[in-house]
């Protein structure tokens, strides 16, 4: 693949065209998961557990089946029993036995809202009544919600066969601690001995939901010959196909998944919940089945990310050189193992060049919904603790917080606590840009304070397929295998247009279904513009090579005589003046005469995603009477490698910050004493609305990733990493009170202010 240079001499890359899916979305015409219908379609619904933890004694579905209009009822007995086996096929390690039991409980329910049975009926009302008629007898068991309570000796055990991995000798008794991890660099004891100032504190975060606007939705149909089709909203049609095949014991070739538009995912749609049930119901009933979650079901049974306890200890010399960094991270996994504690541990101190690091992580099950990936999984939680503690260290040392970060910043050649050294990274560039930004020296008003925090995310590549087809009029179609969550159709079309040398409006990007495009790993890990973009560029370059061959044929010149410039075949330097340019439109028109349609495809496994760094500045105003925190100004600086479409890069940054502000100030799950969720809706689970937020100033820093043809790094995850600590640090700056427990909601802030006054 050709490097297209890293100076901004581009015609399309770096511009801000209107997104190709924009009109459909703003006019309400875009088809999301719940918009699809088929003739004879049934309504599918799920019977969910009212208990946080209980053994299932009996299930009697006969009364439901006897109801006229009910066409099928399924329980876990209708799904194959899958042995326990950890695989890494999606957005993290996955055990298909657990995934199957999360889709339909077998033997035990492990959280309130856990699916136990599903029905398909001719109407929504009949389906509701059928759910009521399913008779389930439970033996309620003691439950545990909070992470340290779940780790404590004598805690109610969720799984009798779960033994802590990563401890020696191997335990002989089961535990809720699924795994213990450690990352060690240098000698932490020596680092602490060398420290002249030590700060140590405990921080806590609450589970927060990805809070995508569109609930999970799908339609499934199974033909008499076993061929299955699924239309659904997800972060990966190939993920849905693979997971359904595994959970239902079907062949992959027998399943075709068509991706709908997606109303947000943020990691939460990298799993299946409804799709296998809809297929099983469709198979059993012989009719298509549509299933759509309510918002309440989304909260009770999907996502969220972990709540956690983060203990941080930092030691430094008087001049601000950090000599020791220690952290203990305890993450809730929900009902089954698999919290993002591992990437949390790896990301925790990655912004810094540290000689001595010691990180311990715990993956802990509890009676909550199984966590799902959420933007930079695990990193925001760790960073809330680390970046808050760093602020406390800066204050202890009497240093400017950005100067402390600058002094300890990771740079090219820095060795990370998880092993490798960094190559080309732009962390220091984000700190420098933040220091120079007018925001950092702007005056503050009464009750106002300023905080800063930094963040890191790895970004990933992976398998991607793309095709580029030249139309008869010289326009082009780009087909990819990734659902467009963050504007990737725009960025893919722009990269194709740049290579082809035509206006981006002449390139139409679409997302193919699993039978019309090669395998593509799901949309996640900030990978699509990087990895699928590489596939698109490769395919577009093959198209250009073919266009040059066709031009040489038409012109009856050697292929060496032809170059490609601005969407036309032109003479190379030594053939200047020998022939007139031949446009792409002319070549497309003559495609039949010169060998047939002009298309190319590329399927790659993209490697070398460049890590992303960000530094944020946040101003808050704290109402001393109510404890309400108002974010008055926010600046987010991020190294994005190369902004293919700067507006969508800025949009990703702004969206990540908005979610981070919600995580910081308001979002939390509230459980009653029986382990039942009390706030499963947007009225009581408060995400930020427009009036809660200032204009978020996104500042793009470009340190190109040399492994991408245009220098792109992933963008979408880093911006959610710094906000929680940036806000906590700003609140301290405003009122002199350290908030170490999220969310920093008005009652909590007011209580802290009152305690400080007293």
């Amino acid at each position, binding site marked *: 693949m050709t490097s297209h240079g890293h100076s901004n001499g581009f015609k399309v890359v770096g511009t801000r065209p209107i997104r190709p899916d924009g009109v459909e979305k703003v006019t309400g015409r875009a088809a999301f998961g719940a918009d699809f219908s088929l003739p004879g379609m049934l309504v599918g619904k799920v019977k969910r557990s009212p208990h946080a933890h209980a053994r299932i004694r009996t299930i009697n579905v006969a009364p439901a089946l006897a109801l006229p209009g009910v066409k099928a009822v399924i329980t876990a007995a209708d799904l194959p029993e899958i042995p326990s086996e*950890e*695989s*890494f096929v*999606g*957005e*993290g*390690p996955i055990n298909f036995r657990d995934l199957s039991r999360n889709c339909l409980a077998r033997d035990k329910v492990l959280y309130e809202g856990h699916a136990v049975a599903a029905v398909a009926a001719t109407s929504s009302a009949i389906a509701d009544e059928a759910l009521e008629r399913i008779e389930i007898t439970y033996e309620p068991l003691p439950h545990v919600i909070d992470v340290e309570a779940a780790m404590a000796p004598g805690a109610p055990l969720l799984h009798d066969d779960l033994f802590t991995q*990563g401890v*020696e000798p191997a335990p002989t008794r089961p535990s809720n601690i699924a795994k213990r*991890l*450690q990352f*060690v660099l240098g000698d932490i004891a020596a680092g602490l001995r060398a420290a002249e100032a030590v700060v140590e504190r405990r921080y806590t975060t609450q589970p927060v939901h*990805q809070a995508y606007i569109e609930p999970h939705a799908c339609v499934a149909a199974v033909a008499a010959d076993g061929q299955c089709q699924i239309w659904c909203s997800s972060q990966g049609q190939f993920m849905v196909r693979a997971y359904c095949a595994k959970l239902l014991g079907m062949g992959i070739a027998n399943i075709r998944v068509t991706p709908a538009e997606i109303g947000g995912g*943020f*990691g*939460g749609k*990298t799993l299946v919940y409804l799709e296998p049930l809809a297929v099983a119901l469709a198979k059993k009933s012989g009719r298509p089945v549509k299933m759509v979650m309510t918002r309440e079901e989304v909260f009770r049974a999907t996502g969220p990310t972990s709540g956690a306890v983060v203990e941080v200890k930092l030691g430094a010399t008087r001049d601000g050189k950090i000599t020791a960094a220690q952290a203990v991270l305890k993450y809730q996994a929900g009902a089954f193992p698999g919290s993002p504690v*591992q*990437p949390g541990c*790896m990301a925790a101190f990655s912004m810094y060049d540290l000689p001595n690091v010691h990180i311990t992580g715990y993956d802990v099950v509890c009676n909550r919904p199984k966590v799902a*990936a*959420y*933007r*930079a*999984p695990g990193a925001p939680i760790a960073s809330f603790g680390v970046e808050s503690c760093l602020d406390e260290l800066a204050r202890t040392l009497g240093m400017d917080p950005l100067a402390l970060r600058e002094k300890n910043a990771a740079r090219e050649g820095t060795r990370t606590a*998880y*092993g*490798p*050294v*960094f*190559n080309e990274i732009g962390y220091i560039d984000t700190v420098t840009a933040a220091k120079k930004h007018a925001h950092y020296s702007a005056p503050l008003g009464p009750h106002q304070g300023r905080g800063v925090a930094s963040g890191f*995310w*790895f*970004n*990933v*590549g*992976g*398998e991607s397929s793309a095709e580029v087809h030249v139309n008869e009029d010289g326009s082009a179609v780009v087909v990819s295998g990734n659902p467009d969550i963050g504007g990737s159709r725009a960025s893919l079309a722009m990269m194709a247009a740049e290579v082809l040398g035509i206006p981006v409006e002449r390139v139409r990007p679409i997302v193919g279904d699993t039978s019309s495009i090669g395998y593509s790993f799901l949309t*996640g*890990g*900030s*990978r699509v513009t990087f990895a699928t973009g590489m596939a698109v560029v490769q395919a577009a370059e093959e198209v250009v090579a073919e266009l040059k061959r066709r031009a040489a044929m038409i012109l009856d010149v050697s292929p060496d005589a032809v170059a490609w410039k601005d969407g036309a075949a032109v003479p190379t330097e030594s053939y200047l003046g020998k022939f007139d340019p031949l446009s792409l439109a002319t070549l497309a028109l003559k495609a039949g005469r010169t060998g047939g349609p002009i298309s190319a495809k590329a399927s790659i*496994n993209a*490697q*070398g*995603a460049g890590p992303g760094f960000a530094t944020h500045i946040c101003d808050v105003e704290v109402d001393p009477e109510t404890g309400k925190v108002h974010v008055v100004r926010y600046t987010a600086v991020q190294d994005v490698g190369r902004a293919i479409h700067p507006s969508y890069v800025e949009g990703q940054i702004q969206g990540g910050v908005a979610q981070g502000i919600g995580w910081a100030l308001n979002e939390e799950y509230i459980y009653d004493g029986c382990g039942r969720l009390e706030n499963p809706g947007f009225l009581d689970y408060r995400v930020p609305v427009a009036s809660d937020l200032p204009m978020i100033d996104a500042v793009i820093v470009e340190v190109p990733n040399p*492994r991408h043809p245009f220098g792109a790094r*992933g963008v979408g*995850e880093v911006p959610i990493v710094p906000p929680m600590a940036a806000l906590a640090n700003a609140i301290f700056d405003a009122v002199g009170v350290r908030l170490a427990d999220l969310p920093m909601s008005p009652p909590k802030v007011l209580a802290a202010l009152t305690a400080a006054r007293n």
Partner: protein
Amino acid sequence: MPRVILGGEVGRRYAGGATEIAVEADTLRHLLLELDRRFPGLGRQIEEGMAVAIDGTIYQDTYVVPLRPESEVCLIPRIAGG
């Protein structure tokens, strides 16, 4: 010859506590095969549950990476995203 940094847990579990070893290999595939020959099970562990960072660049699910004699290969946990 490329140096392989194993990391604590992997080194303890598969390589008798070694944290760094030299392996004669000119591609990642050859390196994985050689590691599995010397430490049975380690190659599979890397393939199914780990990534590698070669001279600082992270690679997952691929054999197709050339190694230089002075390459540093770090075994690290796999990375995904949201």
